[in-house]
């Protein structure tokens, strides 16, 4: 909600419109996806869930799917708002932002799965975000701020990698549950 105040979203061309989306809006992925495993991090709740017939992985998938849906809706609404403010927005811009948000969120999810601590898990996507400020283009196809330069191919890479990371996080949770 602060984005229009901080950045100004009126009358931007496509490259300029990508800036607030890449820098700010994409961070919503971290907020929505990283805490997917949080409820089960409490030992009491974990024991309770483990005693249920329902497969915990299906519960995680439901959480991931509705988090992604909310993510898409939020970004779509904001992109529409930018369009109303005479910005040159497009479906590619929206999907690119979704891909970036998913990537950051999936990094947090993987961190949460590995460390079993949501607070610590937030540091993974944050570190990656910081690295993009400094080293940026050296990250190649995983550079987060490429849409401002008119490059949309990285969005595909970010999306595919985010899907892989999400499934990897689920696999790690499966192994942890099997071990316990």
């Amino acid at each position, binding site marked *: 909600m602060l984005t229009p105040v*901080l*950045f100004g979203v009126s009358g931007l*061309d496509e490259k300029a419109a990508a800036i607030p989306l890449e820098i700010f809006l994409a961070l919503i992925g971290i907020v929505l996806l990283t805490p997917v495993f949080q409820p089960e991090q409490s030992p009491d709740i974990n024991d309770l869930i483990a005693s249920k017939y329902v497969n915990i992985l299906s519960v995680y998938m439901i959480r991931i799917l509705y988090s992604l849906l909310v993510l898409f809706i939020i970004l779509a609404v904001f992109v529409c708002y930018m369009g109303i403010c005479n910005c040159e927005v497009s479906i590619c811009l929206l999907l690119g932002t979704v891909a970036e948000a998913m990537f950051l969120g999936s990094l947090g999810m993987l961190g949460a799965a590995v*460390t079993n601590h949501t607070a610590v898990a937030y*540091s993974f996507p944050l570190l990656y975000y910081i690295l993009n400020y400094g080293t940026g283009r050296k990250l190649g196809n995983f550079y987060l701020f490429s849409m401002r330069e008119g490059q949309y191919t990285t969005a595909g890479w970010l999306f595919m990698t985010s899907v892989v990371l999400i499934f990897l996080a689920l696999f790690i949770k499966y192994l942890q549950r099997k071990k316990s």
Partner: protein
Amino acid sequence: MLFRKEFNKVVFSVSYLIFVLVLVLALTSQGVMNYKGEELEPPQPGQNYGVKNKEIPELIMPVALESLYQEFSANSYTTYPIGFYKNVKLNDRKQEEIAQILSELTGIDKMELYSSVNEADGENGVSYVISDSGEMKENEDGSFSISHEEPEESAGEEELNLILLPDISYEEFRNAMKQVDDILGGGSKYEADALIRFGTVPVSYEEAWEEYELVKTVDYMTGGYARLFSDYAGVMVCSIFPVFLAVVLCMKDRSSRMTELIYVRTRSSASLVFLRFLALLCAVMLPVIICSYYSNWSVWSMYPDMKLDYLAPLKYDIAWILPSVMMSTAVGMCLTELTDTPIAIAVQGFWWFLDVNAGYKTLERAYGLFRLAPRHNADISTRFRTVDFMEHMQDFITNRLLMAGLAILLIVITIMLYEGKRRGKSSGIDKIKAIAADVSYRRNQSEA
């Protein structure tokens, strides 16, 4: 004893391992962990010594005018109204106002200026060059026509001779640029104190030599490298990541169900909280100091016959980085104690985000009063801009003392919150839940 326990709790945790990895990775990515090959050579006659900004009206006015016309032509103005990058596109009325100002400065008719921009873009605002000798234009009826003649340059561009009128004084020019800045909403490169950036002049041999001498006598060579290390360490890691350690440590009591057991101990809240704070600071600063010395050590062999300041890394770690670490840690401890949630990560993350992006305009130096991480990004190519650092030393000291003072204040508040909890007074999220439950109970009672 308690200090050692808290210290061990921090350093023997996964979050601490991640912090150290983050520190090393982030600094290595910026090339400040090893300065081998980055020796500051004494300036030699005939070299390029870089550029500097100087307020020379004869230099600034034409360059600023050209820049304004370029942005006017594209109707795309870059501003930093609250420190953040913002691209401004003006409506027709405001574009005419800009055209009016350009007209007053150059003597060119406003309508000619305004229409030349539209003509240069073609009848429908778009023209395409499809080969060196071909040009495709969209006609009024939507069809396209291709011309194989040499594309004519825009009549407007050819005829426009953007020269400042000779009777325009620098003061009048500054006032005109101020009007432009107001139209753009502030924060543009045409505001009064930003105009100097248009006056870039080469640094002379004598000036370069003076700057080199300052590096020798003030920084003792190592200080400049230590300052660059602190700049990156502060902004990338030390003003944000310590909050994770603080949150994890403070929430550990609750997650281990030790809170009530600790509450009944005889040790005072002040002692408990302060030692925890101290343990966090020591744990964070330990790898920072090691990395800073590792980084600076690579410099020592580069200047064998010179007097070096071997304490420079430690001085900058304490004076530059430590206050940022203190603030980040204090925010983490205070908000975690207040709410029993990791909300401190979001709060500190937001502050860090604003701090980093607000410095976008002033990447080279930023010593604002409430800067979480001051900036002084200068390497050997600019001879570490020791002069600039010395000139802003007062602002820097004020900022660092303020950050340290605010951090101590937050720790005092944390002690009070902790003491309140020990005495059975709920706070933060518990208090909100209690109030909500009370309201719900009263409503149920009244309905019954």
